[in-house]
């Protein structure tokens, strides 16, 4: 019923909640008893969330359905309105009022030391916070795309590996039957040898022009929201709409890379490599502060001869989703349980015992929980996520420079183009730096 109170009361209450956070955790993470980050099957995982806006809340609700396996104890956000809603949600589920709230992820991680953390933040924060959590040996469910730049991604991958944590990427399509089935048919050659892949991602959005500067709302810590990104005055754009501004995101192209490019890689055996040549063009807004490409169309060539075209859906014959083209036909998958093929018989094919059986999960959040307990890899490991977003980030560099980019997927370097190489990272604003892994 908190939502019936006035906005002012709401802000006050939220502030009080933040102040009240400085109490010692009552639930001690299982991992504190010398079990490292692995949890005994009988124990509940102590979990918290960093970033409880739309996607963070969505993930939280999915985790709360697994109540017997985990216990939510704390949340962290730079917006006290987000915190109040998240705390209400958790307290309601826990039937108490114990959920602790934080405005600074550093304090959250230090004080809570949870077994696991679910993180859903604007992309420009991923590099620092994913790596910091991994360095603290906390298992991470992290939203895609896992990084804003290749450099951020490399740091995250190293942090996850070196600290041997369990990582699940929010690429939940892997845990949905039609995507799994499509990828399994593709990788077992049911459309023949794969030659060409088309990946359709959403068209770009309408702009908002150039809004004037506004007072920062009381509930928002704007300085912390910006973090490592260059300081800009507040114009009423923060939550959700960060994805239309290049400082924080690459637009739909990078936002969705962790879905349909990831699936494309899964079915084509490209999960652990990258393209060798990338070229393409974008359509950029003429006016306004939303500056990500509204349309995009780029082609990636792989060392094994496969070509992958990534474009906004309206440019492609089959629109959204992933289409594998082999020398015997094609196979298409998309959301809404869509799976279709050049010959419907392909869809009835049985995968034999001696063929490739892709990792199977029916619930993405459950899969993470299971793996935290078992210590086994998840269905969407960190390096695979890094390879999926790399495709889009390299496409972005090709579009920004107007050049064909040569990429060494082994060394993870751009070949012979120092200016394009600069775009592999974004300098951080002082005092923020990527953690040392």
């Amino acid at each position: 019923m908190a939502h019936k109170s006035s906005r002012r009361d709401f802000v006050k209450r939220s502030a009080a909640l933040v102040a009240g956070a400085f109490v010692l955790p009552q639930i001690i993470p299982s991992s504190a008893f010398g079990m490292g980050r692995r949890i005994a099957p009988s124990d509940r995982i102590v979990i918290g969330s960093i970033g409880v806006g739309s996607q963070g809340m969505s993930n939280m609700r999915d985790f709360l359905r697994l109540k017997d396996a985990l216990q939510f104890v704390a949340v962290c956000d730079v917006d006290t309105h987000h915190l109040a809603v998240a705390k209400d949600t958790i307290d309601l589920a826990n039937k108490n009022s114990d959920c602790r709230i934080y405005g600074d992820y550093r304090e959250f991680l230090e004080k809570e030391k949870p077994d696991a953390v679910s993180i859903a933040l604007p992309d420009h924060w991923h590099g620092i916070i994913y790596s910091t959590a991994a360095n603290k040996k906390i298992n991470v469910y992290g939203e895609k795309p896992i990084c804003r730049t290749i450099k951020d991604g490399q740091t995250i991958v190293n942090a996850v590996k070196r600290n041997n944590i369990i990582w699940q990427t929010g690429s939940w399509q892997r845990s949905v039957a039609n995507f799994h089935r499509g990828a399994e048919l593709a990788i077992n050659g049911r459309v023949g040898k794969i030659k060409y892949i088309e990946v359709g991602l959403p068209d770009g959005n309408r702009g908002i022009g150039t809004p004037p500067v506004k007072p920062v709302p009381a509930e928002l810590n704007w300085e912390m929201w910006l973090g490592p990104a260059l300081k800009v005055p507040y114009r009423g754009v923060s939550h959700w709409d960060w994805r239309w501004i290049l400082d924080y995101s690459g637009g739909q192209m990078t936002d969705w890379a962790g879905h349909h490019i990831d699936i494309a890689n899964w079915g084509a055996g490209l999960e652990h490599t990258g393209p060798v040549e990338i070229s393409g063009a974008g359509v950029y807004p003429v006016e306004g502060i939303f500056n990500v490409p509204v349309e995009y169309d780029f082609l990636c060539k792989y060392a094994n001869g496969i070509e992958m075209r990534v474009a906004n859906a309206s440019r492609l014959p089959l629109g959204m989703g992933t289409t594998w083209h082999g020398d015997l036909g094609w196979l298409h998958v998309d959301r809404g349980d869509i799976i279709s093929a050049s010959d419907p018989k392909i869809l009835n094919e049985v995968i034999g015992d001696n063929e490739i059986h892709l990792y199977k999960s029916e619930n993405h959040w459950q899969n993470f929980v299971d793996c935290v307990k078992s210590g086994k890899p998840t269905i969407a490991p960190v390096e695979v996520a890094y390879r999926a977003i790399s495709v889009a980030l390299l496409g972005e560099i090709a579009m920004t420079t107007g050049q064909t980019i040569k990429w060494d997927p082994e060394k993870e370097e751009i070949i012979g183009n120092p200016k394009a190489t600069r775009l592999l990272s974004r300098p951080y604003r002082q005092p923020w730096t990527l953690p040392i892994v």
Partner: protein
Amino acid sequence: MKKQYLLLIVVAGLLTFFSSCKNETVYKTLIITGQNNHNWKASSPVLKQILDETGLFSAEIMTTPDKGGDMKTFNPDFSKYKLVVIDYNGDSWSEKTNNAFVEYVKNGGGVVFYHAADNSFPSWKEYNEMTGLGGWGNRNQKDGPYVYYKNNILVTDTSVGNGGSHGKRREFLVRTRITDHPITRGLPVAWLHGTDELYSQLRGPAKNMQILATAFADSAAGGGTMRDEPMLMTITFGKGRIFHTTMGHADEGGGPSMHCVGFITTLQRGAEWAVTGDVTQKVPWDFPSAAGVVLRPDFKEMTLDEAFANIGNYEIPKSTKYLSCIQSHIRNLAGDETGILKIEKMMVKVLKNNETTVEAKKLLLRELSWMGSDYSVPAIKELVLNSELKDEAEFALSRLQK
């Protein structure tokens, strides 16, 4: 002295040579107007300006007699022109003129039908074959099918009903349906058009016609058909090529529909295709996208020099188009270091100018961070000392000095 004279003669000779070359590629164009249920006095000079702006066309406007006037006096010599633009919706021409126009097109003359031109001459068979689709003037099932897209499928609909309608004027999204036609090649697949009438329920013979672009006539603005209605079409008639744009409802001075870069560019490209069957014009940097409508106040494409003359005044609530223009030129150079250095020097000049706003300098520093060279470094180092620009200057140096 002698050398100087020689130089003058050579220069004069070259000028004559180039201007004569140019003359050969300028297509004489006739814009016919004089009667219309629309503001033809506003639209026809704009059409002329838009076409002349390309350097490809030299357009003249010819007006017919007023409504009820003696049409026998209207006898254009079509053979003098490569392109005829119809901005006319009024009394029938004389049979002689009609025949001359049909002969002109049959023999390969280019035509552009603009907006209400497809309302004209409902009973002139050949004219309707040339427009492909038309509306109003008691057009109905006897005149041919409705043609439109429904759920991305091209529909030829012979159902009974009147031809021609439109809802309230509004901005609308234009969708390219054929992306590899010379007119649409390189254009975005979707772009927002400036406030205009969305012509719907056109019907006609639709022979030898291709629909290049459509717009969805939603019901929100009233009168929506919930179909994707044809906006841009090409038709062939004999040896003639025809470009038909249903857009561009004119207000005084043109209005947003004609100031729209999407309208301007597709008209220019459609006109060239009608004359030659190909398009040599580049897609302008300011072509709109689904992100928003782009209007040109003076119908001209902003040049890089104009962008640099204005970028220094950028402040928070102001237009970002000058930066967009510079960025677009950098992308188009595709790594051509000589060209990029030239732009870099212009950027540094603005950066060093005391009149330049802090916000403009911030934009330029971000851009220089990746495409700049050692040339920029000293100027950027100075800005590190400026507390307002320190972060952006360090951002740039961190990349440039790697």
